[in-house]
């Protein structure tokens, strides 16, 4: 009996240790970003003192540098605009597509669904070279429109697949009832299915937006001028003067960009998992 | 083969809420088939799970084979359990499923084949050993679950509503097989169900539970004919016992004891009576005082072997109270809607319950008018 209790306690301690260990390992860089953002420069670059705490009073000088002397805000703006446009295009195309695949195409629907999902696996690092030529020939080099054009190529497959899961979880009897009541299939889709799926559509919006902010290769390849860059590329590439990295401001930029996305993600993760499991673990 | 005993067993899930199981005291007999019967939420499954070791009691003791087992994990209690969903391991074959307990208890590998074959043959699933659970029908899966349970030769079997996932037709034959199976192996068995027909058919004794409290423990005959309170009286038997409330007593009588009086008046001999009644109605032929009640028929259900008449009493102080009667199909008189007939109940069949406590009391002098 005592052995049972000892086992139980040992198990709990290990459990707790695992959780704390992983949490620290995974979240530490963000703590580091946070503290680096607000540390005075001489505190930041001093090797002799404890780096984990504020040894001198915190400062806002890195933030000031970031907002006033760099194009960070411009990059944020570019990212938001591109994100919004890409979300719009993605929703426009993937919501109907997902519905069609979930409801209207029978066995082929299943195959096409998987097919569309597989296109998500074609990597940008294979396509970016030929695409750069295509973009150039369209006269879109160094323009944010190139990104608006190209990004849906991976946001659409991802969104379609996720939305398929959401739509499948809506009982088809609802639409049948609506059609008996006089709506056409498309009418039922517009007036019934879409309003019910706001949660799913919102989730897909958030995830599409985050896919846009995460993208690196295309932005790096297609955009060359600093003022038109996206935040994911601008920060690591342009916040450097010569060979000198302005770490305080760099960390500030990372922190400010990451946190809102993290909060949004956390709110919508459960819905994402629900959609994912319906689609994949079926 | 062991005796399971609980002493003051209690389980409270949420502080401040009433317990799921409250102060249950019971003791099985060796080799008996004991049924925990009750509606959902009565605590029967929680009680079973505590005996299994899957839930920790809040208070009280559980003894198996005379020893307190509260702190022992399930695998050290020498029990086996069949879950409502059977819980077969989907990635293992039937053979591996049945062999799993042997593997877990470190039984020598050479013995596995022999023991699995023995268990499989007891349940008639020898041909299915190489299949996976998803390829089996509901009835086959149930048998695999049973084979997995007996292969370790446990002291106690615990079964959690194993028949409820089967089709109605399959359920009857599965029930019969289970009963015979248990008689053959003779292991003490505790069986949880909400189906009172199952409980009556299978149990040597029945533990009737309601809201975590034991209402009565007894043989099927005892709980049916001598219910300890109004809950037991109405839970067993379908349609349930007729209950009429007076000031301080409740009087009850079963539908099958509430019969047309003309039936008996017209019959001239007991043979004629006997030919018109089923065995369970024979008690009526045994004379003695009877209570005469007028009965207006509202609705008739024809069920083949019998008819169920739903109606209300006419006259008496219980006028307009709904009552039910069950009459065998051998009685051919018509009972039209809204017709009024003379019915009787033998006085010996009346059960009396205290109105406040709902518990059974001695027969009292009782006015009907």
């Amino acid at each position, binding site marked *: 009996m005592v052995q049972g209790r000892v086992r139980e306690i040992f198990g709990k301690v290990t*459990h707790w240790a695992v959780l704390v260990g992983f949490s620290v390992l995974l979240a530490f860089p963000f703590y580091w970003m946070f503290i680096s953002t607000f540390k005075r420069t001489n505190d930041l670059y001093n090797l002799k003192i404890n780096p984990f705490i504020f040894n001198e009073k915190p400062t806002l000088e890195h933030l000031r540098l970031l907002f006033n002397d760099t194009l960070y805000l411009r990059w944020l703006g570019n990212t938001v605009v591109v994100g919004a446009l890409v979300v719009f295009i993605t929703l426009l*195309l993937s919501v109907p597509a997902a519905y069609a695949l979930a409801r209207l195409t029978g066995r082929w629907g299943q195959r096409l669904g998987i097919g*569309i999902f597989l296109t998500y696996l074609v990597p940008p*690092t294979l396509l970016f070279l030929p695409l*750069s030529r295509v973009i150039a020939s369209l006269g879109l080099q160094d323009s944010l429109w190139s990104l608006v054009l190209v990004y849906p190529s991976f946001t659409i497959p991802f969104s379609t697949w996720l939305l398929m899961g959401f739509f499948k979880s809506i009982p088809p009897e609802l639409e049948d009832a609506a059609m008996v009541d006089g709506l056409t299939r498309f009418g039922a889709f517009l007036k019934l299915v879409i309003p019910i799926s706001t949660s799913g559509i919102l989730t897909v919006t958030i995830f599409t937006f985050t896919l846009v902010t995460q993208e690196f290769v295309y932005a790096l390849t297609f955009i060359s001028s600093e003022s038109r860059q996206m935040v994911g590329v601008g920060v690591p590439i342009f916040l450097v003067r010569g060979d000198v990295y302005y770490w305080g401001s760099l960390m500030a930029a990372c922190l400010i960009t990451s946190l809102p996305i993290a909060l949004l993600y956390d709110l919508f993760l459960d819905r994402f998992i629900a959609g994912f499991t319906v689609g994949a673990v079926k | 083969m062991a005796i399971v005993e609980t002493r003051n067993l209690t389980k409270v899930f949420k502080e401040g809420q009433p317990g799921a199981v409250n102060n249950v005291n019971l003791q099985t007999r060796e080799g008996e088939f004991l049924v925990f019967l009750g509606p959902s939420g009565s605590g029967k499954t929680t009680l079973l799970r505590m005996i299994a*070791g899957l839930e920790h009691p809040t208070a009280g003791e559980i003894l198996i084979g005379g020893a307190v087992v509260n702190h022992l994990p399930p695998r050290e209690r020498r029990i086996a*359990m069949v879950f409502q969903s059977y819980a077969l391991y989907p*990635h293992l074959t039937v053979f591996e499923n049945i062999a799993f307990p042997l593997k877990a208890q470190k039984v020598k590998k050479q013995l596995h084949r022999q023991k699995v074959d023995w268990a499989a043959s007891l349940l008639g699933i020898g041909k299915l050993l190489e299949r996976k659970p998803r390829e089996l029908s509901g009835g086959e899966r149930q048998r695999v679950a049973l084979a997995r349970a007996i292969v370790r030769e446990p002291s106690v079997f615990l079964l959690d509503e194993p028949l409820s996932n089967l089709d109605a037709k399959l359920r009857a034959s599965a029930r019969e097989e289970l009963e015979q199976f248990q008689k053959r192996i003779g292991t003490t068995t505790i069986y949880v169900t909400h189906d009172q027909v199952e409980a009556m058919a299978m149990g040597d004794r029945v533990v009737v539970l309601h809201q975590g409290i034991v209402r009565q423990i007894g043989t099927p005959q005892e709980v049916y004919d001598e219910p300890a309170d109004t809950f037991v009286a109405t839970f067993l038997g379908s349609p349930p016992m007729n209950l009429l409330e007076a000031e301080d007593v409740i009087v009850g009588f079963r539908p099958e004891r509430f019969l047309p009086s003309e039936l008996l008046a017209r019959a001239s001999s007991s043979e004629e009576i006997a030919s018109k009644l089923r065995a369970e109605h024979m008690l009526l032929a045994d004379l003695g005082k009877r209570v005469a009640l007028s009965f207006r028929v509202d609705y008739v259900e024809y069920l083949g072997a019998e008819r169920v008449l739903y109606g209300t009493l006419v006259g008496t102080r219980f006028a307009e109270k709904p009552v039910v009667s069950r009459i065998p199909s051998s009685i051919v008189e018509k009972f039209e809607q809204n017709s009024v007939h003379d019915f009787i109940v033998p006085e010996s069949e009346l059960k009396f319950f205290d109105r406040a406590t709902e518990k059974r009391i001695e027969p009292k002098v009782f006015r009907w008018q």
Partner: protein
Amino acid sequence: MSSRKLGAAMFLPAILYVLAVIGVPFTLAFIYSVGDVKIASVGYHFVGLENFRSVLRSPTFRRSLFDSVVFTVGTQIIVLVGSTILALALKEKFRGRGLVRFLILLPWVAPVSLGAIGWKWILDSLYSVINWVLIAMHLVRPYDAPMWLGEPVLAMMSVIGVESWRLLPFSTVILLAGLTAIPRDIPEAAAVDGAGFWRTMFQITIPMILPIINVAVLFGVIFTFTDMTVVYILTRGGPYDTTQVLPSLAFFTGVLGGDLAEGAAISIFLVPLLVAVAYLMLRVAHRSEVT
């Protein structure tokens, strides 16, 4: 409009768009790789397998192939083991689970490049906080501190570490979804049958989530093998091409070097792996449907 026609009309735009933006460059990649296109060039001449030959002869390429394999395999092993442990730890409810989940998701949620830059600062040759700790614990001497991004073996370790760090949350989430799909009475039946903690985990739980583990690993392999961001930001492929992976090599050759043809040829080498993974994923999907 009939159901079929409506269905086609509704998904055709999406499929056409995707096929266009993916299919066209995909085909072009093959065409360029057998041509002589340079960034500024106008014409096109077919050169057969010349690009491939030259690429295969190049020691840089061969080194990159090796680096890619090491990078991918190393990352996958760490992610697989780590996310399994973490998912098992997160399975049951406990106080603070929401907070832990938030913290654990951060690496995946933050843009890759920004997380990588954060690590670059942590691994900085002069100011690395890791080195500070090691020195403070007297495990290394101040002037002997490891150059995390400057020495070949350490650089590969760092790059693998950062990529694992970024992929761990995603894998954990997938495995967690699989774990919660296991019906509650299966581990209970195992407990009654006599299985202890380890036996239940290795003989029941993990085999039951094997299909999900497959999916997570396949995803992970694709993301890692085709990723250039982490390498680009941390080491630019250095020191001396010891962490150069195929995608980053393709980038340097094709964009910075201007040789689109050779760059395309290099990135074509990603295709066999993609095909293999796609095939395996379809097999897993097919098998789980049969269940």
